[in-house]
């Protein structure tokens, strides 16, 4: 057991899986000597050599397209996209190819690949360095979408992703890259993709969240003095609707929290499903605390944009009062 932050937990997971599986290769902008702009791949090129950990030209479509070819050729590439804002140029390769290759070739070609992407706001970064596009990819059949909220989860989920036979977008909430540490076993463990975690149990209301927002939710719960159940989705697709529905059937009330814009954010899917599955048990409309339907503002105003504990608190209170 080591006391690690999220960056270190990911680094450890990469090291351990690369040692086990020689087919894992890492590629991306500045991931080699520099260890990535967030230092997530620090030391890996030195350890595994330039053949397994290499810098690419500055072109995201190229990085993903090359990775798709590597995966079709039998490797498990782990491309890093430097910030989620630069997924844009790779959108077509991800959605038109990575997501479809198995289905369009009826399994003759597959794309086992783990795309690592720092995600989300709150770090005072320039434009296009603070977005949360997970819903876009959850709406694209053929992909799996993962977003851990703690070092322990980060390791277990990444190891699982690295063993997946299908493409996984592994979003790393950069706001909590170094925000806290926790005990992370050195020993091998995986967390199943598609299973949520109940962070704390409660009977008055359910909160569903994922990624860095889980922290704001915990703050709000602490403040509330109510018995609130917090479910961290951990994976956005496939998502653990059973866990959510079971909890809401018990509590009758639910708040969903995420950083992405409200409209068509993944919260809309969760809300719609809760209505479908818990209609008779619901005592209040599901409340969504989300980013606004605006471009993420430059950083002077980013804290006004991001859902914070106060907004979560307010939604909890309103939902309970209904």
């Amino acid at each position, binding site marked *: 057991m080591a006391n690690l932050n999220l960056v270190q937990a990911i680094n450890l997971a990469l090291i351990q899986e690369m040692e086990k599986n020689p087919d894992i*290769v890492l590629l991306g902008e500045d991931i080699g000597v520099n260890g990535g702009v967030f230092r997530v791949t620090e030391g890996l090129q030195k350890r595994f050599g330039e*053949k397994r950990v*290499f810098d*690419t*030209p500055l*072109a995201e*479509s*190229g990085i993903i*397209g*090359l*990775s*798709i*070819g*590597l*995966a*079709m*050729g*039998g*490797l498990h*590439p782990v491309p890093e996209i430097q910030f989620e804002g630069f997924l844009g*140029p790779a959108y*077509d*390769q991800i959605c*038109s*190819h990575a997501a479809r290759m*198995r*289905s*369009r*070739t*009826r*399994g*003759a*070609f*597959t794309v086992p690949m783990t795309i690592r992407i720092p995600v989300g706001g709150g770090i005072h970064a320039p434009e296009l360095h603070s977005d949360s596009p997970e819903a876009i990819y959850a709406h694209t*059949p*053929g992909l*799996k979408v993962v977003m851990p909220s703690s070092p322990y989860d980060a390791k277990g989920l990444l190891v699982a992703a690295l063993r*997946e*036979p*299908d493409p996984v977008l592994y979003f790393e909430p950069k706001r909590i890259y170094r925000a806290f540490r926790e005990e992370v076993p050195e020993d091998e463990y995986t967390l199943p993709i*598609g299973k949520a975690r109940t962070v704390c149990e409660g009977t008055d209301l359910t909160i569903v969240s994922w990624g860095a927002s889980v922290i704001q939710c915990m703050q709000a719960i602490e403040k509330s003095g109510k018995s609130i159940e917090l479910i961290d989705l951990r994976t956005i*697709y*496939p998502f653990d*609707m059973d866990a959510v529905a079971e909890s809401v059937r018990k509590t009758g009330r639910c708040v969903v929290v995420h950083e992405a814009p409200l409209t068509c954010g993944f919260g809309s899917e969760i809300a719609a*499903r809760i209505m*479908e*599955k818990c*209609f008779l048990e619901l005592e209040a409309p599901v409340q969504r605390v989300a980013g606004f339907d605006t471009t993420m503002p430059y950083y002077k105003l980013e804290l006004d944009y991001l859902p914070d504990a106060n907004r979560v608190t307010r939604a909890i209170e309103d939902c309970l009062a209904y």
Partner: protein
Amino acid sequence: MPITTAYEAKIERISILDEKGNFDDKLGKGLIPDADLVKLYEAMSSCRQLDQVAFRLQRSGRMGTYPQNMGQEATSLGAAYVLRKDDWMVTCYRENCGLFWRGVPKEAILLHWMGDERGNAMPKPHWVTPIYVPLGTQMLHAAGLTMAARYKGEDKIACTFFGDGASSEGDFHEACNFASNLKIPVVFVCQNNFWAISTPSKINSAAPTFAQRGLSYGMPCTQCDGNDLFATTYTMKKAVEYTRSTGLPSFVEMVTYRLGDHTTADDASRYRDKAEVDAWKARDPIIRVREYMKARKLWDDAKEAALATRIEEENAAAVARAEGIESPHRADFFDAMYAEIPQDLVVQRDTMQTHSLGQDPSQLPPEAQERARQMAADAAAAAHH
């Protein structure tokens, strides 16, 4: 010396057997053994005939949109002939002739255009990739496939084909740039057939050649007559030799012409002159080889007639196989999505519904449940009709 030379480049154009029947002995002699030449000719003829069959299938409603390859047989065939059978060949949709030479069953290609994914389930031993509809995207995969092979210690190279139009896509640039800078042995072949649907090639490149698109990356670049099987073979041989021995990419432009419509959904007479098409018909790659073979007494009308019969039978059999395959089942598109199908998709597949009450009729009052069951059964029966 304030003005110095930073870079110089020169691109050659290769032509061996021209449309008038002139044959360049220096480059052409011994290039293709006679026995091979006959087989290559037969392959081109067979591909051409299949094109006509496919056209008729489409017109009679037995096939969807189909892109004819007519006139371009010598491009991909020259490449396939030169490549090792285990080199990757990563193509678009106008390289049937090369794919068939590789051993791809004709029914696979037909099946694909009949709207069936099973046509894209390219068997691994042919080292070819599925048909690509999104243009310009496959060249990056060619680079990745080759890099993966090299990583595993195999000395494969890849050859990837794309059109004059597709070379305008950003991914084209990224693929060439990645291959050059990361030292991945890929031969990039731009098949310039002068048109991208109705768009003349000058709108896709105002430069004198498409071959020079490779200069950006410091690749050796060559242009050749793409309707000349000898030229495509010669040029590919040089490019493949260079790429295999250095581990570095190279670039080839094959100048050819699309004799048919863009696809069966297109009407080329809207945008190009008959005179232009006629001029190119005279440069047909198949006629050229036939005349050459006849002149060399390798071929005669009797052989031609026999071939025509054989091809017709073979292709009819391929059509029969493509049409004879059992219909796909709607469960297929669910089961093909992931190695292990998520539970939510299982429910969608098994109910063929997305609405929650359809997925879980137990939520309905008992009479309604019965009715829902009946409706589902009716729908299933209708679907099997």
